[in-house]
C-alpha cells in the first residue's frame, strides 16, 4: 500500500484516498461550440502510459480535497503531489530516478534488471 502525501494533510495511507484518473484534462468550455471528436475525447479518452503520469487523487476519508501528483505507473512510486492551482511539474525533472523492477526480460521474470 502506498503512502500518499496530501498537500493539505501530509503523508497518509492509500486507503484514505481515491484515484481520479489522468490530471490536467481540460473540460471543453460549454459556452462555445464543441465538436463531436473534441467532446468524445474529453469524455472517453485518457492516457495510459507506462512510466510517468500526471494523476488526480482525492483525500476522500480526510480533507476531501482534490490534488494532483506525478506517479510512475511502472513502479507505483509517487514522485510529487501538488495542489490543483500549482503549475504542473516538468517530467524531465524526474527522468533520472525512474526504475522498472519488472522490465520484462526475454527469459525469466521480474528478478532481472533491464538496462536502458
Amino acid at each position, binding site marked *: 500500500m502506498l503512502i500518499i502525501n496530501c498537500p493539505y494533510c501530509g503523508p497518509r495511507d492509500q486507503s484514505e484516498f481515491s484515484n481520479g484518473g489522468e490530471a490536467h484534462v481540460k473540460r471543453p468550455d460549454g459556452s462555445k461550440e464543441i465538436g463531436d471528436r473534441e467532446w468524445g475525447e474529453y*469524455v472517453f479518452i485518457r492516457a495510459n502510459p507506462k512510466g510517468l503520469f500526471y494523476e488526480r487523487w482525492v483525500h476522500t476519508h480526510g480533507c476531501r480535497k482534490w490534488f494532483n501528483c506525478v506517479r510512475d505507473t511502472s513502479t*507505483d512510486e509517487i514522485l510529487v503531489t501538488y495542489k490543483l492551482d500549482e503549475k504542473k511539474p516538468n517530467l524531465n525533472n524526474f527522468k533520472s530516478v525512474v526504475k522498472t523492477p519488472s522490465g520484462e526480460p526475454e527469459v525469466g521474470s521480474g528478478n532481472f534488471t533491464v538496462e536502458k
Partner: protein
Amino acid sequence: MKSINLKENQFIQFHQKISFKFDGVKYFGYKGDTIASALLRNNINLVGRSFKYHRPRGIYTCGIEEPNALVQIISEYSEPNTRATIKKIYEGMEIESQNRWPSLENDFGSINNLFSPIFTAGFYYKTFMGPHKKFWKNLYEPLIRRAAGLGKPPKDFKGISNHIHHNVDITIIGGGLNGLLAAKSFINSNYDVLLIDFEEQLGGIINNSNKISSIDNKEPKDWLKETIQEIEDSKNIKILKNTLVTTYNYINHLIAIEDRFVGSKPIEGKVNSTLHKIRASHTILCNGHIERFLSFQNNDLPGIMLSSSFEKYMCRYGLAPSKEPVIFSNNSNSNSLVYGLIKAGLKPKAYIDSRSGEEIEPNLFDLIRKNDVPLYTNSQIKGAFGNKKIEKILVEDSSGALNEIKCDCLCLSGGINPDVHLFTQSKGLLDWDEKDLTYKPSKPFQPTITLGSASGQFNFDNLNSDINEKLKTFKVKKLDVKLELNTNTKYNIEKLWEVSPQKKSLWAKSFIDLQNDVTTKDIRQAITEGFDRIEHLKRYTTNSMGTDQGKISSINALGIVSDLLDKKVNEVGTTIYRPPYAPLSFSAIAGRNCYEFYDPERKSPIHSWHLKNGAIFEDVGQWKRPWYFQINKDESMHDAVQRESKNVRENAGILDGSTLGKIEIKGEDALEFMNLIYTNSFTKMKQGSARYALMLGEDGMVKDDGIICKISDQHFIATTTTGGAATVLGCMEEYAQTEWPNLKVFMNSITEQYATFNISGPKTREIMKKAFPNINFSNEEFPFMTFQFHEFNDIPIRILRASFTGELGYEIYIPSNSAPKIWDNIQSVGKEFGLAPYGTEAMHLLRAEKGYIIVGQDTDGSITPIDLGLSWMIGKSKKDFLGKRSLARSDTIREDRKQLVGIIPSNKADKLEEGQHIILDREIKSPVPMLGHITSCYYSSTLGHDFALAVIKNGHSMIGTKAYASTSSMSTTGVDIVKPVFYDEDNKRLVS
C-alpha cells in the same frame, strides 16, 4: 529411527511432561517441544501421505520450510496443513495425519504410486479433457479433489485477530546473530527500532547449531542473554517474538503475523493472532538462509532429513532423531553436524561427500579420521530403500563401486540459499553467485539492507566490517565483536543437483518437490514438451507451487533446468516470489472486520419503532429500511404490500424516508453551481419552491435524481437517492474543486442530521392539520412543490409538499434527535384517519403505478433523460451542465435507443417477471432478436393485474402495439406496450 534425548537443553523442560494424541494414540512430549520434535522423541517418523502418489512421508526439516509434515489440529477447530515442525504441543492437543484413508499405515490411495507412470507432468491437463466437457465438473474434479490434496477444511472456526500499526525508523527482520548485532548498534540511539523474530527465543544460529564456540570470549548463550537484556533495556527498541513477516510491500510496508498462543491451546473468544502492519523508513533483512536438499531415487523416504535440521533438533530441542545418521553432502555446511554428533557422544554411521578429498576441509577430515567414521569422498548416494522408512542406501564411491549401508536416518545437505523471499517481494533484484551456487540479493529496490547469510555472506570473517559498512548511513556506534567458530571453515560447495538414477525404471522416483510430488523426470518431460520457460515449467509441473513454495528445492529445479537447457542459471531466471512468505489465515487478514463489524449498519432515528411494529427490513446500501410491516406473523409479504399500498390510495400512509441523501449547498455562486450540476434550470425558480431534478454523467446518462429545494439563490437543499448520496456529494465536490474553482460554493452532507417522513394519501391534509395545528395546509397557502419552515414545540421543521406515490403528500424534515417524538405524535393523531406505515416495497409499487423511475433499477447507466421521456427536465436555454454536450452525440440522438415504456399483459390474468426480455415473436427461435427487458414489475390491487416498466428499443414509437415477454419457464406471454403511467395520468390527486 531410534531417537535419544540429550541430557541438557535450555529450551526443553524435561521435568514437564505433556500428553497429546496423534491419530488417536496418546504420546508424551516435553514443554517446549514442537509436534515434530515430540513425535521424533516417540520414534514416530511416518506423519503423512504425499499429495499425488500417497507415498509415506516423514519429518524432513525443523522449521518453516517443511514440505511433508503437515498435520490437522483437531483440538483447534480442525485447523489443517499445520507445519508440525513449528507448532508447539500443549496438554491435551489432538493431532491427525492428512491425506490418507483408512489409516496412515495402510493407505488405499497409495495405489496411485503403482499407477504413477501415468501421473506425469501435465497429467490433469492431458487426461481430463473429454469425452464431454461436463465430465470435468461432474466426475473428474470431485474424484481428484478426494484423492489429491492436503487437509480437510476447518470447522466452526471463529478466530479473532487484532490489527496493530507500527510506524518506525528501522525494522530488523530476524533476531539471529546479525539481527541482534544490528539491534545492538541501535541501542539507545535516536532511531525507533522494531526487531521481529519468528521464534520464541532470539538467537537464530546461536541456538540452532554448533557453529559458534565463543562471542567476545564468552559462552555463546551467555553473550546471547546479556545482549538480549541490553536490547530489551533500550527504550528505542521494541521486540516482537513469535512473529513472522509474511509480506514486504512497496514503501517498506510490512505485514507480520504474531501467534498469541504458542505452546498453549487458543482460548475461545480471545485474540489468537495479531496482524502487525509496519511502516519503516529502512528495513534490515537478517532472516538467514535455508538449506537445500538433494535429488536421488526415493529421496522422500521417512528418515531422511536436512542435516542442519538434525543439528537444530539436537541444539534446540535436546533430541538426536537418530544415534547414527548417515550424512550426505556436497558442501561444508554439515561440518558442524559432524562436530555436534561427536561432541554429544554419538557418531555418524558414514560421511559421504560428493567433493574430492582435497576439497574437504582439513579439520573435518581430522575429526572423521580420529573418530573412525567411514568416509566416502567423491561419492554419491544412488538411492534410498526401505518400507515406509529408510533401511539402507546405495553409495557409489570414487572407484564406481556400489556400497550398501544399512541405516535408519540420512542427513542431506545440498548447499544453502539466502532466504531471498522477502527481498524479492520488495522488488529487489537477485544475482546468481557461480561460486556459492545460489541466488543472492544484489540491487535493492527500496531502502532495504541485507545482513549475514540473508545477504549471501556465508562466512563470519567480515561480520563487523559488513554491518558497520551497511549501517554507516545511520548515526550509530561501530561494532567490534570477536567471534570464534567450532569448525573453522569457509563455505565451500560443489555443483550437484541430482544424482543420476542407478536403475532406469518407470517407478523409480527422484523428487524435486516433495509437497507437490514433482519428480526430476517431470521436469525433463516438461522441457521435452516445450515448457522451457521457468514460469511455464512451474505451472505445468506444479513445481514449487505448494504451501512451502519449494523453499528447500526450487533452486535445485533451476539447476536441473539450466543443465538440461545448457544455459547458465541466471539465464534461466527464477520464478517470482509472491507474498505471503508462509500461509496466514483469512481470519488474521480480516481482523475485526468480520461478523457484526464486517460493514457498518446505518439505522434511521425511528429504527426502534420499526422493530416494535413488525417491520421486516431490507438492506439499501448500508441502511436498514423497513421493507414492509407485518400486522401479524401469518401475513405474507404479498398481502402486507397490497394492504399497505391500498391504504395509501384510500386513506394515508407514512414512510420513513430518513435514509434519503440530503446535501446542503451554500455560497455566493450556489445558483450557478446548481445550474451546472443538474439538468434543470433553477434560475427562474421562486424561493421556497422545489423541483424534481436529474443529474447526468459527462456521458449524458442519468446518474441520480432528487428534489431540489431553493431557499435562496445562495442556498439550496438537494435530496439524493439512498444509495447515491455519497457519489452525488463526491461529484459536486469534484466539479467545484477541479472544474469551477472560481465559483464560491460549499456543500456538505446533512443526511444524518435530519429525519424525513413521507406522508401521502387522500386523508393526509387532515392528518397534517391535526398534527401541526398552527400551519395552513390549504392548496392556496401550501401548493404542490413548495416548502415552508416552521417551529413545532420549539423544534425547527421543514415541510415539503411533494409525493412519490401519486397521492397528495408531504415530506417532513426534522432534526434527528427530535424525530421520534414527532413520529409518535403523527401516529397517534393519524389513527382515526386510518394512517398506517408502509415500507419500501409498497413505495416501489406505488411509484411504478405512476411511472416514476428508480435510478439504478429502471436505469443502468446507459439511459438518457430523453430515453426516459423526461426531456422537459432539461434546461435547454442553459449554456452548460454536466453531460449536456453528450445529449447531442450521434449515439444519444439515435431513434432506436432503448426507451422507457409501460407493459401490461394482454390477458390481464397473465403474470409478468422482472428481468425478462421483450421480444416480437411468440415462438422462441434462436437467435431471438431482443428489444429490451422488464426493469420493474408488480401486481397492483388498484389495477387488478400485473404491470411493468421496461426499456425497449424504439419504445416510445411502439406505444400502442403488441409484443411478447419471455418467461422463466422458457415460453412467452403476450403484452401490450403502453405509456409508462398506469394511475391518475392527469396528476389530479397530486395537486388536490
